[in-house]
């Protein structure tokens, strides 16, 4: 009994260490993302601070649009188009997952009624409680 208990304790310790590493990874990832947004906010506030009381939004808007090159505009159109295509594809994938999960759920209820919940959403999206 004691050896079984120690194996269980070791297993729990192992799981705890893995969880700590996972949290550490999560913190580093969040720090990188947050750092990027802080940098962006810094750029924005610097820009706004330099222009405070000197120029109107219209001045900036006109200059911003006037500075646009055709190649830049094309790059933005391409970026928006690619993003839109990716969004459409993602929806198609989620519809496929929905179809697959419905079929498997029906069959599992007939063939394997004792199974536990898989805790997955029907469309394969991230559950709000699993986000972090």
């Amino acid at each position: 009994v004691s050896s079984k208990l120690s194996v269980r304790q070791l297993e729990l310790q192992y799981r705890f260490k893995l969880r700590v590493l996972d949290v550490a990874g999560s913190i580093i990832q969040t720090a990188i993302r947050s750092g990027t947004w802080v940098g962006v906010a810094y750029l924005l506030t610097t820009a706004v601070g330099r222009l405070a009381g000197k120029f109107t939004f219209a001045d900036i808007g006109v200059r911003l649009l006037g500075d646009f090159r055709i190649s830049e505009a094309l790059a933005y159109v391409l970026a928006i188009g690619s993003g839109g295509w990716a969004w459409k594809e993602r929806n198609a994938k989620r519809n496929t997952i929905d179809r697959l999960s419905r079929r498997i759920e029906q069959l599992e209820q007939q063939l394997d009624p004792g199974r536990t919940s898989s805790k997955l959403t029907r469309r394969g999206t991230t559950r709000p409680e699993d986000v972090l």
Partner: protein
Amino acid sequence: MTDALDLVVGNLHLLMALGALTFLWFVGWRGYHLDLFRQRLFAIRQELFDLAARGEVEFNGYAYGGLRQQINALIRFAHRLSFLRAAIIVTFSPPKPQGAAHSFESWQQSVAALDPAVRDRLRAIHLEVVFQMARYIVMTSPLLLIPLGIAWCVINLVVGAHRLRGFIARQATCLHALELLEEEAEVIEMEAA
């Protein structure tokens, strides 16, 4: 004064470009690959379920249950999977205690006891899961994607160039053979004349 405006407009251009890049990376590329990964895992899970539904593997056995649980966990936490996290866990994780329940070793043991054909099928399904996971990590990590993408392009260029050279050499051999045939035909014609 216009210098300040130039600087601000430059900053705004940079911000817009960064915003577009962020949108493309997180919503477009990364999001697309997340859904693709999950869809493939669902398809693999269905394949596994079909195997059990045909009676080739037991629903209550760990060979089926363990693999199903692994696939479900990957589908559920796929959004957390990244090169950075994988690298941290692989580098710093302690060795798994001997005799621990639900380990890969116990899954392998339960699979080893099955019929060879089913055993191979289950191992192939497991391998496919691992391959899809590795593919997802590579595709969503710029650190891996850029060098591996360049390597992939270089390898394809080298292989393509090698094939093209082989094709040209084969065509040249055919042309040479045709020339010889024509020469032979001319000699025969002259002799006949």
